[in-house]
């Protein structure tokens, strides 16, 4: 006879195996590894919560300490491969297969383990794709998540850094999986319930709060004049003419400069209220001056940011907060918002090729994608119109009848022509291609495909790729803003001049940008301390960003 509830039966037996370590749902920290060895089975799909911000670090360490005789051949499905333990699990033979989205500091070690055959790679995803696959073909049998606090029944408060938790728990708990939460503390009464207790199987009080990386904190003191110039170009040459109201920013210094120029340069251009009102964005400290100056109407966040919690609490008109007053972030929803409800993504990258493809991987680093490819892509399923979307669509396709013309999301790559250590931003071929060959991947890890990119901004000017009519024009438009890199110097000067006359390339002088304005004193805040001051003392930066 066919069994239709084998998953439920399996879950019951896992729970039974774990029961000896639990009092109700609560398990002692010292039994964490034993619990995992009891409820996880060899070959399971396991998700350790962790992205570019929060980390279920205690549970990651507990799994890495497991006996590889008992636990082996696991298939890790997780947003981030960020902690050393995430890779120890592979090195120790506990896990074999990996599907993930982001890796920052571990990108070199991942590459080594991939080359060494210790990791069998499924695919590198965007966050949203990986969440989607949790519901289709990568559903976890066991999820190890992180919350701020739990009550006696096992309800969870995930708080400002809720991030990926709802997506992971939804997929696991409702498909017969086991959810194990590490919490900073167990309390009698939670500030609010983010995850109800009947979706949670075990709760372990950690010896220290789960780790959160202040990834979105950019010190204004490190912003250069050329970055300010690129920011002025973006504001005057893209934000203003398209009237971009709904947007997402990357985490680089160029976009931090834009945020800090809105209340100064943007104000001077009379753009307040006309651009940059609605955001899918983490709580960037560098946006505080714009918020305080009344530029920002609303922000939905993927996660929180270290030190911003009190500020957010005091600005509930701007941020999404719970009845308790603290931020509620949600990566999956914010990624959807970035894809469908934003008219622009602007961010920086490490390499751009002659077709406009961009990538952040190099031959010895497999950095993953995070959310950028999702933000930085045209949403083909979008159906609602907006000014910037329609205008971009018209520029790309002036001849189609308006009623049948697709709009376009503005996907802007911004950066200086030379990056860190004088490495050129523009290259003939992406390192990603060589990496794909070396690892025998089906796809090169391209961050943003050239056909999604609409503009490239460097200190030399803006290339509007929507206005390019063929590949030649596209290539010369890119070369025309590639400065004194080898790519830039190999431009066809006459063709670049023609593109400039047509407005495909626009230089600072074409936009009436005074180079003398490219001055750090144009920034609304020039230090972290200034940001604290703007926030009225509500922003509490982590100590590594303080000098007081």
């Amino acid at each position: 006879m066919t069994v239709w509830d084998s998953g439920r039966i399996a879950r019951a037996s896992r729970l039974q195996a774990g029961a000896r370590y639990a009092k109700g749902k609560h398990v002692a920290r010292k039994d964490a590894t034993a619990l995992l060895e009891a409820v996880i089975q060899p070959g399971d799909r396991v998700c350790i919560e962790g992205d570019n911000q929060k980390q279920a670090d205690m549970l990651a360490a507990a799994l890495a300490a497991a006996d590889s005789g008992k636990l082996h051949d696991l298939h890790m499905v997780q947003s981030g491969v960020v902690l050393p333990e995430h890779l120890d699990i592979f090195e120790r033979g506990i896990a074999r297969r990996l599907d993930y989205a982001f890796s920052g500091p571990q990108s070199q070690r991942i590459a080594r383990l991939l080359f060494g055959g210790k990791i069998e790679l499924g695919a590198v995803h965007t966050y949203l794709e990986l969440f989607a696959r949790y519901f289709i073909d990568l559903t976890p049998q066991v999820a190890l998540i992180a919350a701020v606090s739990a009550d006696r029944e096992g309800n969870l408060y995930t708080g400002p850094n809720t991030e990926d938790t709802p997506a992971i728990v939804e997929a696991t708990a409702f498909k017969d999986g086991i959810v194990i939460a590490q919490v900073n503390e167990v309390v009698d009464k939670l500030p609010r319930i983010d995850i109800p207790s009947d979706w949670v199987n075990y709760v372990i009080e950690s010896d220290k709060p789960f780790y959160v990386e202040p990834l979105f904190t950019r010190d204004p003191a490190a912003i250069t004049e050329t970055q300010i110039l690129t920011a002025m170009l973006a504001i005057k040459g893209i934000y203003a003419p398209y009237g971009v109201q709904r947007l997402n920013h990357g985490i680089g210094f160029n976009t931090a400069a834009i945020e800090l120029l809105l209340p100064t340069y943007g104000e001077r251009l009379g753009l307040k209220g006309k651009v940059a009102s609605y955001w899918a964005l983490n709580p960037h400290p560098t946006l505080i001056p714009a918020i305080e100056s009344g530029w920002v109407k609303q922000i939905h966040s993927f996660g929180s940011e270290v030190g911003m919690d009190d500020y957010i609490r005091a600005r509930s008109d701007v941020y999404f907060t719970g009845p308790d007053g603290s931020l509620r972030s949600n990566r999956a929803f914010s990624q959807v918002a970035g894809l469908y409800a934003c008219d622009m993504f602007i961010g920086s990258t490490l390499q751009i090729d002659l077709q406009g493809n961009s990538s952040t991987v190099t031959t010895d680093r497999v950095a993953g994608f995070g959310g950028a490819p999702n933000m930085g892509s045209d949403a083909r399923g979008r159906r609602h119109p907006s000014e910037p979307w329609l205008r971009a669509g018209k520029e790309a396709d002036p001849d189609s009848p308006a009623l049948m013309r697709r709009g376009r999301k503005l996907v802007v790559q911004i950066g200086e022509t030379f990056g860190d250590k004088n490495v050129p931003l523009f290259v003939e071929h992406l390192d990603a291609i060589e990496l794909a060959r070396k690892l025998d991947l089906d796809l090169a890890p391209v961050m943003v495909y050239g056909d999604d990119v609409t503009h490239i901004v460097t200190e030399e000017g803006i290339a509007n790729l929507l206005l390019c009519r063929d590949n030649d024009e596209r290539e010369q438009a890119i070369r025309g803003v590639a400065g004194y890199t080898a790519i830039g110097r190999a431009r066809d000067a006459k063709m670049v001049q023609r593109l400039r006359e047509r407005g495909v390339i626009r230089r600072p002088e074409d936009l009436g940008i005074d180079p003398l304005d490219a001055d750090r004193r144009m920034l609304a805040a020039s230090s972290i301390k200034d940001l604290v001051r703007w926030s009225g003392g509500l922003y509490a930066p982590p100590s590594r960003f303080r000098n007081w």
Partner: protein
Amino acid sequence: MEKLTYRHVAALRAKGTRDQAIVGVVASGNLEVLVERGLPDGECEVEIRTPVEGFGDVWSAVVVDFVGRSSPGGLKLSINDGGARPDMVALRLAQAVRAIEGERS
């Protein structure tokens, strides 16, 4: 220390009436540009002293573009380089011409 000198024909005489201006500072990744009048209206000279040797072709390209994009006729620009990237050099040259033009029109 490498010394490079470039002389170009300039299409237009630089605007404004100031005799000289100076922008930037000699620091790592930075440079100063002293700009002075005194050359014939159709000429422009750029003199560079840089501790980073062997990049004459890049300097030359930056200067050619600068002369083409700005109108530095009659100007002599003297650069003390602290090892700036070409993007910074281009910005400083543009700033120098703006500075000798005087206040925003």
